[in-house]
């Protein structure tokens, strides 16, 4: 549990962090360190240089404007879980963050680090995909944004380029008539999600006008389920169960605790329950 030799640099600004990234080949950014340091201790990651961005206030904070919420990449899970802004405009993100690890992990871990690390059992990715959030990145050549659905590419692989820093995520606020829920089936050892189901439904005049379901933990990246069959229904339990049973994963992940088949099964059950919870909140 002792990392290999590395140099430590602390960046004073995003600009400095970007230039340190350019100067040091194979360097790693460190936010909360709660995924990076364990990888380094197991020597699965051996970056020659670690660039600490943990104190960059410019990347912290939660705000709402013009119908969307913006969360800085260095905002901790604890701050997200306790955010009044999110409670009012996007409670499902706060709900998911509250499920992460334990208090210590939530106090240190950040949303940027969480999605840049892209563990398939992470709680945040399915919620961002469900919300249709955008991930914002900055490099020496400028800024760009990418849809959350395209951001997660494979197991521990994302769209973050070598010279880029993730600055913030933006998600549309949940409108009136929309309910959303995140339900987690926790791994008894790691505490990560074996399955994490994020669901939303919008109801107008007793009828569903929109619904979404994204399941994490089943595949390398969040799996969106086509639940459009719910639109126009009154969201009966049967309709919800039928919609959730559409979860399909080509190559589900499995471990000694839960096989791929079982994860898909649980994904369907938790998808159903998350949709029902979302309905009850709409």
């Amino acid at each position, binding site marked *: *549990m*002792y*990392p*290999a*030799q590395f140099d430590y640099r602390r960046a004073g600004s995003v600009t400095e962090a970007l230039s340190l990234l350019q100067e040091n080949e194979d360097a790693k950014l460190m936010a909360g360190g709660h995924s990076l340091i364990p990888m380094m201790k*197991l*020597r699965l990651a051996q970056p020659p240089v670690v660039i600490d961005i943990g104190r960059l206030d410019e990347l912290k904070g939660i705000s709402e404007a013009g119908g969307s919420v913006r969360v800085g990449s260095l905002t901790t899970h604890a701050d997200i879980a306790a955010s009044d802004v999110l409670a009012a405009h996007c409670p499902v993100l706060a709900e998911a963050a509250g499920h992460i690890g334990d208090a210590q992990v939530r106090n240190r871990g950040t949303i940027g680090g969480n999605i840049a690390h892209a563990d398939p059992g992470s709680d945040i990715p399915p919620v961002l995909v469900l919300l249709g959030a955008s991930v914002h990145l900055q490099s020496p050549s400028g800024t760009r944004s990418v849809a959350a659905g395209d951001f997660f590419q494979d197991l521990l692989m994302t769209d973050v380029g070598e010279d880029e820093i993730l600055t913030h995520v933006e998600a549309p606020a949940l409108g009136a008539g929309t309910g959303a829920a995140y339900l987690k*089936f926790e*791994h*008894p*050892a*790691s*505490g990560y999600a074996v399955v994490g189901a994020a669901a939303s439904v919008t109801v107008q005049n007793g009828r569903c006008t929109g619904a979404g379901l994204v399941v994490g933990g089943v595949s390398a990246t969040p799996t969106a389920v086509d639940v459009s069959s719910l639109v126009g229904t009154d969201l009966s339990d049967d309709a919800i169960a039928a919609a959730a049973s559409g979860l399909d994963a080509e190559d589900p992940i499995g*471990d*000694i*605790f*839960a*096989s791929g088949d*079982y994860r898909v*099964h*649980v994904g369907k*059950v*938790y998808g159903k329950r998350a949709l029902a919870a979302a309905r009850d909140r709409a």
Partner: protein
Amino acid sequence: MARVLGTSIKRREDPALITGRGKYTDDLKAEGMAHAAIVRSPYAHARIRGIDTSAAEALPGVLAVLTARDVAAAGIPGVVPVGWLLPDLKTPAHPMIAADTVRHVGDAVAVVVAEDRYIARDAADRVAVDYEPLDAVADVVAALEDGAPAVHEEAPGNVAFDWEIGEREPVDAAFASAAHTVELDLRNNRLIPHAIEPRAVLASYDSSTGEMTIHMTSQNPHVHRLLMTLASLGMPEHKVRIVAPEVGGGFGSKIHHYADEAIVGLCSMKLDRPVKWTATRTETNLTDAHGRDHSTRCALALDADGRITGLRVDTAAAMGAYLSTFAPAVPTYLYGTLMSGQYDIPAIHCHVTGVFTHTTPVDAYRGAGRPEATYVVERLMHLAGDATGLGPVEVRRRNFVSPDAFPYQTQVALAYDSGNYGPAMDRALEMIGYDDLRGEQASRRDNGAKQIGIGFSSYIEACGLAPSAVVGSLGAQAGQWESADVRVHPTASVTVYTGSSSHGQGHETTFSQIVADRLGIEPEAVEVIHGDTDLVQFGMGTYGSRSAAVGGSAIAKSVDKIIEKGKKIAAHLLEASAEDLEYEDGSFRVAGSPDRALGLGDVALQAYLAHNYPDDLEPGLSATSFYDPANFTYPFGTHVCVVEVDTETGTIELLRYAAVDDVGNVINPMIVDGQLHGGLAQGIGQALWENAVYDESGQLVSGSLMDYAVPKIHNLIPFELDRTTTPCPHNPLGVKGVGEAGAIASPAAVVNAVVDALSPFGIDHIDMPLTPEKVWRAVNS
């Protein structure tokens, strides 16, 4: 003075520990200290063709790289011995450092010593070992199959021993004429102890004196010194001092003598410098002796009235790659002997095969043999309740050893000294609201995915390891007494030197209560010293729930001797006859003359100022005792677990857990409850989550805490505890022991509850751990 025995005074250990001032082995620093990293086999079974240490040696800061060759060159015995023998036990050598063959992932092949632990680790990665991988067998049943890869040439068929207890013929006869029989094939899952503090050692050899001081994570420093000097390092025992500073949990894993501690000792001797090693969590999981790992076929015969007539048990018990210190004793003396449970069983036969596998050695882990035995008996009792139609409560009651039958001689060597099983069951039923629960269960049977189940475990254990008269009769060539040296200072405060060294149990608190109570002084006036071979005469250590019953009794014995000695001194001072003196509330009084009395303080002072003593009276006021118990102690109780099973996903929610335990007299109720809580967490952990899993090639796939689930506080529920009190009749304190009860009783209670919940699905058994997927598959098959 108010009695302190039986009161929940706060643990005196805690202020230092919770303010971070406790000093654990890894906190210690020595002048000139170097750091060791051990190179371990990545293969479960391989031949070592060669080891190239040059790249490691070339790294700046590296002081030495040692292999088996250096062990041989040092001219030391260089082995890790097994401490407990059985008849016809195969004892293949366990070299400190593997010379030509590695036998489990984690087997030590070399050690690097460097100026700091980072360099040591870097260098360890540069030791190039040329392995020729060989076929391996990790599974205890597979290892017994024809043609299985052999772990040791000396042990054909991978059999380490073949042991039995009880008689086969009467059991066969009982089955032949039984009205009901139930049988079960079960696995008792392999567990990793997971003490929070990893094993660590700081060995400091000084060539100028030839002395070695070893600070290490030990539950029994004297035993470690004996094995370390005798079998590993070959040093004279009087030149070796072993100190166990604060020890952060052990659960058995720090009883055993391991290669690593001996290797670090050798490094210190070679370099003439202090050398420290602390296991990483990964190393801990690969090298701390594991627990359990049985495959068992068992069956119970009952007559038409539901009375048990016979019990048959056949177990294959994994030993792992080498025989660890206690290993052969665990599935035999501490397992087969417990098969009578709380029941009057006229015929029992238990056969155990000890099996070598290419895995981490298996040894004592909280409960050691007794959880496995309880699991067998209590799972069968659950099935018997169904088969006879009597249900789980009545079938147990009907077979309890009756309270007037004690001492009760079982068919498996042990004679239970005392017991009264009915009241514990009654109380448990009352606490849980049994009839209402059955009503709720019935109302849910036909509707809803969530079923509830109620499971029982009426357990017995044998604690207070180990009366030489009893274990001697079973072939053990040792007894496990304990020693205590109690010294009363001239000012009447007291220091106790005990061989029971604590690793978190609170010995300092409870032992001070014992002394304070017996001497009629305040517990604050008593200091308890343990865990240092230079300070303490000798000790067997802390395991097997023995500290209060054996270590505490040794202390009581010494205190009694001190009172006798004090009477002589007081008689001299009061010009009375010692026979006429009584000791009460801290003073010596002449019977019948209340004004002729001397306080302990006066007597203690005069014991040291002694100047005009008669020839037959020695100065000083201290006493040393060695206490060999007359019998084991037999705690018992009934635990009831209530679960809710979500049949749609297979997840299990604990709803209630009630435990009624009889641990004899209680010294400190808070500490007793704490021990029960910890044991329950581990037992429930075994039932629901914990599992050391090897793949077919012998890789430990649950080697990290990301995969191996230890129970966390949010996984558990508040436990409902109560007690009955049946004092142990044969020790001076009437205490029995509580360290393991929770871990012994609870696995069966949990599994019985889940099986009870799932009985509408025709499920009568699921192997532990009851993971949601297993439950879901059982429901859907």
